[in-house]
């Protein structure tokens, strides 16, 4: 009987010297350019330079203050405690509205995932209210809840609720049949099934919903504060901007806007990015 022949090749052994280059260290510049943070910082610095140049060219601090003016006003206002106080006032209201919105959204989606009538309810409500800008409810809220945090929280709930509920619900629906069967195999039912299987499995969508909800809420809040301003003696950032416009302190208006942007960036890039890294990236649910 004839056998197949195996000939061993010696040239793959470790003694063979490497002729081709397998790995090469990247230069510092290449490494830095590969970092998204560095690239984005470069863009921001460039935009800052353009701002400064245009501001100087225009030389009209009433219309368009320079970046340096804005920054120095911002520093003063932070140092005298105005901006931190105003920002805190905004964030406090925001957190109340955001937490209530997310809580109501989770109750609605849990009902929707367990009963058909709950699904219909959620779908109808989202279809009706999601396109309605939260700020459009403000006049009504003012009549119902008066000038105060109650009205703000009401419009914030509206801005957060539908985005979070919609994303969470579609996330739940997207959980694979296999994972659902695994969960039921363990005898999980009701709430423990929802929280131990569905919520983590749908976490990418839930997180997207939370991010969109946050962005909606932040915008709505600043806009609402601009419309009806101060409540209970202590306004937020929106009121700070409005107030300084009335005083024609335009650098302070810009400083207020810059604070709004900065807080938005910090929440998006520090808080949500960290949650993402510790959850869905680690789990391989997002690359």
């Amino acid at each position, binding site marked *: 009987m004839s056998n197949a022949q195996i000939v061993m090749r010696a040239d793959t052994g470790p003694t063979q010297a490497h002729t081709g280059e397998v790995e090469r260290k990247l230069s510092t510049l290449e490494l830095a350019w590969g970092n998204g943070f560095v690239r984005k910082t470069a863009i921001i610095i460039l935009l800052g330079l353009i701002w400064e140049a245009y501001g100087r060219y225009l030389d009209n601090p009433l219309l368009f203050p320079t970046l340096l003016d804005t920054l120095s006003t911002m520093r003063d206002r932070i140092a005298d405690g105005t901006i931190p106080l105003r920002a805190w006032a905004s964030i406090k209201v925001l957190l109340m509205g955001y937490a209530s919105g997310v809580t109501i959204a989770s109750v609605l989606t849990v009902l929707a995932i367990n009963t058909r009538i709950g699904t219909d309810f959620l779908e109808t409500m989202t279809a009706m209210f999601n396109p309605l800008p939260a700020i459009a409810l403000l006049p009504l809220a003012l009549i119902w809840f008066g000038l105060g945090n109650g009205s703000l929280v009401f419009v914030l709930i509206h801005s957060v609720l539908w985005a979070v509920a919609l994303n969470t619900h579609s996330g739940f629906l997207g959980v*694979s049949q*296999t*994972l659902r*069967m*695994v969960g*039921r*195999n*363990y*005898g*999980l039912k009701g709430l*423990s099934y929802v929280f*131990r*299987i569905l919520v*983590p*499995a749908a*976490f990418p969508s839930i997180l997207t919903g939370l991010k969109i909800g946050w962005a909606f809420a932040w915008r709505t809040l600043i806009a609402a504060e601009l419309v009806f301003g101060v409540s209970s003696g202590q306004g937020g950032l929106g009121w700070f901007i409005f107030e300084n416009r009335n005083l024609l302190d335009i650098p302070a208006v810009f400083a207020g806007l810059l604070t709004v942007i900065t807080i938005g960036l910090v929440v998006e890039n520090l808080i949500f990015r960290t949650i993402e890294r510790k*959850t869905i990236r*680690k*789990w*391989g*649910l997002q690359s």
Partner: protein
Amino acid sequence: MTALLDVSGVTLRYKTPSVLVTATERVSFGVDRSDRFVLLGPSGCGKSTLLKAVGGYLHPSEGKIRIKGREVTEPGADRMMVFQEFDQLLPWKTVLENVMFPLLVARRLPRKEAEDRAKAYIEKVNLTRAINSYPHTLSGGMKQRVAIARGMAMEPDILLMDEPFAALDALTRRTCQDELLQLWEDTKFTVLFVTHSIAEAIKIGNRILLLSPHPGRVKAEVSDVDRVSPTDGSAGQLEKHIHDLLFAEEETAH
């Protein structure tokens, strides 16, 4: 002696949006303790549907499924499933946590005990080096081995395996089959195994139930499968025999 798993006269039907499909018709069989019982048949014979019914995910429209005399009404951890799909591990848990999770929530073991037991079973499937990895970093074969460890760690009455190696490449599949048999030698667990590969059925099983398609009916039962051996050609003969049985009608019909 009554069988550990007793399936008697089970008819399974499911609805698609337009039609009512009969997947299996009056199927009966019994699985004894330490059996490696294989459900074998071409696609459309309802073998996976039958396994899901034993798992408690479907209710028979006729007949009864009993495990240790109790009627199966819903899914439960006394019948651990191993699926074909690679996404059956919980992606937010490490290998160790995946194996521990059912021990904690279904078996309600204390954490320490669950951890020890999980580690022992992960050791058995040779995955100790990957114990703290997340599932997305594992290969397909490793994921299936974790799923098997997870099922076995629960020490269920019966392990239900739904073509667990079908999505693997041929080399990995053989390794996994050998490993499963080795595990069986160690613990003599009871397994109900679904496959459409005749060779796999002969390799894994000691008893094989042949099902014919549309709707699924029992065609034959092969016992003492472990007496055949791949070296003297008897396994090949049995394979040919089963092939002829399963496809005889189809060929004459053409």
